[in-house]
């Protein structure tokens, strides 16, 4: 096992308070990507 994720990084990844804000941030960011819409690619006009 090689420690590729530092202890500090892991602390940030697993800290419930920090991760709560991350949860809100990710939810919004994902909504933007997902609700950002979709469409065709073969526009001829």
């Amino acid at each position, binding site marked *: 096992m090689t420690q590729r994720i530092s202890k500090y990084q892991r602390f940030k990844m697993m800290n419930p308070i920090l991760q709560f804000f991350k949860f809100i941030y990710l939810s919004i960011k994902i909504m933007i990507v997902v609700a950002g819409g979709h469409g*065709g690619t073969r526009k001829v006009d």
Partner: protein
Amino acid sequence: MSKIVVLGAGISGHVAASHLRRKLSKEHEVVVVSPNSNYQWIPSNIWVGIGRMKSKQVLFPLAPLYKKKGITYKQAKAITFHPEGDAKESKPYVLSEYVFGDKKGTTEKITYDYLINATGPKLNFEATEGLIPGENKVYSVCTYGHAEHAWEGLNAVIQKLKSGEKAKILIGTGHGKATCQGAAFEYILNVEQELRRHDVRDNAEITWISNEYHLGDFGMDGMLMSYHGMTMKSSEMVEMIFEDRGIKWILGAGVNKIEDGIAHYENLDGEFKNETYDFAMLIPAFSGHGFKAYDKNNNDITEKLFKGFMIVDADYSSKPYEEWTVQDWPETYQNPNYKNIFAPGIAFAPPHAISQPRQSKNGTAISPSPPRTGMPSGITAKLVADNIIDSIKSGKESLHHKGSLGNMGAACIASAGYGMTQGSGVSITTYPIVPDYKKYPKTQGRQLGKTFGEIGLAGHWLKLALHYAFIYKAKMRPFWWLIPE
């Protein structure tokens, strides 16, 4: 009055049926034909496969819901397609065979005005000799039944490890052309975390085996993504996670035969090798269901409807990887020969792969087939339903709703371990799903910012929140339609 028949009640079939029913008045009939009496939220099968969720938490019976909502449900499987009817039946129909109840074994010509083929993939275990879920110590998590079985197998290994024995665990793809690497990726990380939870991690060797050329290819040609303000390749991110978790990997492997505890594979160098294991979970190849189609004179017209999966408005002309474009990908999922037939979700035939195709020195194809995950399956089903609704309401064909995988984003929240405080998830979004190398030439075909990755506890909460939200939506509870696909 129109009759819309939906084949399949997976993510895409159920999404299409529920939107059709909500938006069409009761004079129009919505019929769902599906052999499985339950709706299953497949993404959570990963947690069933590690014993952290029970099957009943990921499924619910369809019949009571459909009865309540005014959707006709036939627990049957489609067998043959007759888009022109036949000598006796003037309307187009699908010959279907009931699989349950009094009518079990009997067939019915189910006529339609519009047909949505949402039958997803056939889990083609037969394509790999010896790859039989639950036999030869190899398992699958592709259905809740398989996942339950996988947990039994994994639990037996955990007990063995607890008694001090060593064990080898192999997880990945079970065929040179398999797809759905993301599901296997989730499973390997969940298994690894469970072994740590049971304090037996040190006794186990865990190996990833995959037909991908690079780690993190996921059948999507890999990704260049934003990660903590840096630009990172998905291969680097997955390598970081695997190394950190002590997971080994074998890439470019086309598994071709399974014996009890031995996976045989060919690699891109043309070498034939094998890997032993005590527990394996390998995703099988996905294929079409092998449906046949006939015209009104009973002539075989299968090639007008199927190319393995169903033919839609894609560009199927064969061209080299360098000439692939996003324009090859379908926009409306309409069959070009029979305009009242559509195929969203996994049921449509993709024009080609997304990942660069590769062959071994012996000419064996070893590279991922294109994945079609839950979100695009839901989005394509909804746009098909919307076009049918518009066509019915306006009395003429309407194809305003479009959604190419080359102009659509997707979120993939890969579980990396279960637990409210110890869980983890790798949250990845990608835009577009199919890389547009012309539009985004410097960032591997994707828009940075909209293509990003995150690792941490929030990912687990997100995946769990999605589990509850999508089951709520599928149960068509109040305001279900506000939850996006």
